[in-house]
């Protein structure tokens, strides 16, 4: 019926109440409870939070690995440089276009496929297995497959198919680099969205659907007023998780276009990588990292609040 996130919220509320009731629990008991948690917590803090503090430190310095003498405190000048860096703005925009484009298109396709799969037909298991496969292919292999085997201008399969319809060959990765990257990304992420939405469809109460059909509601009406509202939380969860993963896309860009031509298809992760590992500009790259984290925190906390509100209000 319900997702376990609801259980989880109820669980944590229950846990909170229990904790309140047991305020009097001894110090020793408190530490006994914390004991199993601490190794994971300490490990995560050390490996994920400490490097970020170092990133902030680096962002205030003018370190360039090619000019070792210049490792000095430069204050906010790295940040001022970023504010004036039009490439940074362009790659930020590319990040938004690639992330939203991929997540939204994959979600729409995922909903369509999930609806098609949510009915009995011959070979349903096989069709489902085929449809999830793109998500399981190693992203590096996906990039190779798309840029070389499918979208190559001379022997790629895509241009051959277009040629059958009399359309001239297109050099996809240099003429439409972002579209080419989006094709590979949407192909990879549609199964993810499909699986989430399909789980939502299968958790629908069958008696409600039957009642709607008895009341004379057509399939479209039933979909709009019962299924879609029910799916909302699954769709939101899919969009949130999709954004978290896709915004960090690196493999496809590195392998399909190398951010090019120029920086036309570079996103922020790729641009920061370029500055750090090809330009050795540690200070600049670190400052960009800090800016990206701040932006992520703003977007993510808004998204998280939205989602958890929608999970809490209902039921």
């Amino acid at each position, binding site marked *: 019926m319900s*997702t*376990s*996130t609801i*259980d*989880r919220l109820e*669980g*944590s509320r229950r*846990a*909170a109440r229990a904790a309140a009731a047991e305020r009097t629990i001894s110090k020793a008991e408190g530490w006994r409870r914390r004991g199993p*948690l601490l190794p*994971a*917590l300490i490990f*995560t803090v050390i*490996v*994920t939070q400490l490097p*970020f503090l*170092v990133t902030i430190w*680096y962002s205030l310095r003018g370190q360039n690995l090619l000019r070792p003498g210049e490792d000095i405190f430069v204050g906010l000048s790295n940040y001022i440089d970023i504010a004036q860096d039009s490439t940074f703005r362009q790659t930020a925009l590319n990040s938004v276009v690639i992330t939203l484009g991929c997540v939204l298109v994959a979600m729409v396709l995922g909903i369509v*496929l999930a609806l*098609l799969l949510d*009915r009995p*037909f*011959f070979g349903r298991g096989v*069709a*489902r297995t*085929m449809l*999830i496969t*793109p998500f*399981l*292919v*190693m*992203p*590096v*292999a996906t990039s*190779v*497959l798309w840029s*070389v*085997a499918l979208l190559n201008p*001379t022997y790629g*399969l895509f241009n051959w198919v277009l040629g059958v319809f009399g359309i001239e060959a297109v050099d996809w990765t240099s003429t439409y680099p972002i579209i080419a990257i989006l094709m590979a990304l949407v*192909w990879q992420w549609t199964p993810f969205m499909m*699986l989430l939405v399909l*789980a*939502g469809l299968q*958790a629908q109460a069958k008696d409600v659907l039957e009642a709607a059909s008895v009341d004379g509601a057509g399939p479209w009406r039933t979909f709009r007023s019962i299924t879609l509202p029910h799916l909302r939380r*699954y769709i939101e*969860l899919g969009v949130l998780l999709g954004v*978290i993963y896709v915004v*960090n896309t690196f493999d496809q860009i*590195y392998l399909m276009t190398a951010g090019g031509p120029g920086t036309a298809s570079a996103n*922020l*992760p790729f641009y*920061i*990588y370029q500055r750090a590992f090809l330009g050795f500009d*540690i200070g600049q*790259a670190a400052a960009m*990292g800090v800016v*990206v984290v701040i932006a*992520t925190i703003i977007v*993510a906390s808004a998204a998280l609040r939205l989602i958890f509100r929608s999970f809490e209000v209902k039921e």
Partner: protein
Amino acid sequence: MSDVTRAYRRRATGGVLTTLTWLLALAFFFPVAWMAATAFKQENQAASDPPTWFFTPTLDQFRAVIEGGSAVYVANSAIATGVSTVLVLLLGIPAAYALSIRPVEKVSDVLFFFISTKMLPVVAVIVPIYVVAGQLKVLDNIWTLVVLYTAMNLPIAVWMMRSFFLEVPGEVLEAASVDGAGLMRTLRSVLIPMVAPGIAATALICVIFSWNEFFFALNLTASRAATVPVLIVSTMTSEGLFLARLCAAALLASLPVILAGWIAQKQLVRGLSMGAIK
């Protein structure tokens, strides 16, 4: 409209929908099938215009990939994936226990902390990790990847395992404590067997993410600790356009995860949603 025509129409619509579903399934699967087919071709058939549809399959490319020194990469990937997954479970299961069965204070704060680390873009920490790893002389060292992959998957595992622990009925735990079973015994003989499917699902997700990981592997390894994704990229750049061999390497590299995902389709959904969806 008579019942008969209505039944006919419904069956016709059903047939159309089924055909459409199959066409879409084939379309989505086609690139994978094309990659697999190309892997069995000779190079001149792989990069031909028009494409070669009929050919005598050959194992030459697979032989070339396997004999071309790929063993080191596979071993590195296996260590990074296997050891990090075990570490994730060893750290994550007790943590999930402390966030569900016998909860610490501020459970939701801790949960949000874990999930927020997944939102921290990897690029924001790669620079210090690279510099510090260089100073500690652990660049191009497989254990560096083990530590990073453990940190990468631990939050997912904590959330997932917690969702499985919350499903264990309270009566079972009470019965165990009435019987006088201590913490370790309750864990070993009651809890762990009950959440075993959850442990398997968590392990599957960790294996998928660490086996496929490329960004850390690219930046922190060179010749000694490079993993399978790095091998594919070096095949691509160093040998120019040996498309058939590239497809063979890509297929071999993807096969473990594809097979695991096919077998464990149900667990996949739960893992991908961090336990939120059953």
